[in-house]
């Protein structure tokens, strides 16, 4: 579905097919959803969509993890082994 017509206008603001192929081959190792499809059948818009979703998920996970970690630090129990590990790491 990706446009295979050669672009006569040559605008630098459009993503070229080569860039898409390059991006797909690299993203295949990183983004799980694209791994299962063959590269010639993945349209550019789908690649972009999966990338955006993946980045959004990673952001959400970072927020979630930092919240949990800060709660963990706040409720440090003196006897807990994990808490003392973390505490020894971050306080000096």
């Amino acid at each position, binding site marked *: 579905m*990706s446009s295979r017509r050669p672009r006569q206008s040559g605008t630098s603001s459009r993503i070229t097919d080569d860039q898409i192929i390059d991006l797909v081959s690299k993203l295949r190792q990183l983004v799980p959803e694209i791994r299962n499809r063959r590269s010639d059948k993945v349209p550019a*818009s789908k690649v*972009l969509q999966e990338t*955006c979703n993946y980045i959004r998920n990673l952001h959400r996970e970072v927020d979630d*993890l930092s919240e949990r970690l800060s709660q963990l630090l706040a409720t440090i129990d003196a006897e807990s082994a994990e808490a003392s590990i973390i505490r020894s790491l971050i*306080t000096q």
Partner: protein
Amino acid sequence: MRNPSLIKEEFLKRWIIALRRCTSLKKNMNILERNKVVKLSADLAMASARNGTTSWSRALIANATRDNDNRILAEQILGPESEILVKRVSTMPFKTCNRRKIRSKRILKRSCSSAIRRVRKTVPRKVLANCIAKRLIQKRTHILKSLVPGGEFMDETTLMEETLDYIAYLRVQVDVMRSCTYC
């Protein structure tokens, strides 16, 4: 691309140093402050591990130090190298709210959609599909630009390279934070 375990090591080292700097400065933080500290130190550790070599890392540091509330905290986290890093990012363009651009885009969109409705009866399906595909790519590129820090000012090629680098570093950040939280 760099070895992920090397990146992990680098990130973890910087993050721990950053957290130590924060906790030594302020002993009793409430939960919101602590949350902000943890997140900010993780983001800045990730960005500084790149040492200003990539655009997204410079943009991340720039955004953190521009906001007046976070500026002092960010500089404390970055420590002695903050001066060098801040100088390097001070040339980054400022993210401005382009309301006028958005309004004119909406007007253009409305006129385009009515034109497309007229054209749809006469134009072959393949051309139309290409047009829609192009529109989708444009729209999604725009979204990607808003997700990657500093993306709005990049051209397409740079955006792709920066995205790949940014994703690799985000994964490292998530892995390290996850193993810290669920140890």
